[in-house]
């Protein structure tokens, strides 16, 4: 019996619109507290927003969008001209510790 992937879970209540849309991450697996047990993926993801030069976790969850995560640890990848960063990884709770490259 294969163990299901466990990921850190967090969605931000920034606005009603964004929060409502991001509730869809809960469909990828059951959430208890800050941990989600993935039903449909082996990938954990983190989406970060850069505010005044500092990254802030916007979403931590089981993957719903990326579909692929070759790395075991969560390496930051820039998006939209460094306004956002994302990371994907394939070990339990790996999305709690993002690795920032140079």
């Amino acid at each position, binding site marked *: 019996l294969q163990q299901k992937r466990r990921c850190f879970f967090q969605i*931000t209540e920034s606005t009603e619109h964004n929060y409502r849309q*991001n509730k*869809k991450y809960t469909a990828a697996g059951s959430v208890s507290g800050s941990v989600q047990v993935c039903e449909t993926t082996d990938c954990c993801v983190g*989406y970060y927003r850069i505010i005044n030069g500092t990254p802030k976790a916007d979403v931590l969850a089981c993957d719903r969008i990326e*579909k692929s995560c070759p790395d075991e640890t969560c390496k930051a990848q*820039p998006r*939209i001209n460094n306004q956002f960063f994302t990371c994907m990884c394939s070990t339990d709770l790996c999305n709690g510790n993002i690795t920032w490259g140079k």
Partner: protein
Amino acid sequence: GGVCGLKALTVSLTKLLVGPSSANINNCHGSCAFPLTNGNNHAILLNSHIESGNADERSPCCVPVAYEALEVVDWNADGTFISIKPDAVARECGCR
């Protein structure tokens, strides 16, 4: 390169969206010359007009005629959000 049809096309999304990093949106390629196999009535009449000597008219073009939506992580001033983008992935091609 054959008659008008669908081909896979993977594009990077990292400049436009937060996720996914890339997606296969497909693209349409190929000939729409006579005899037209996958055209509608307008394309058939247009091709007939061009074949009758009006070579300067815009000829039928191989384009997507059916699409699927793509689920992405979009962004705004308040952060990221899951969004469904309609008509993002080409599913079928035709001469139009």
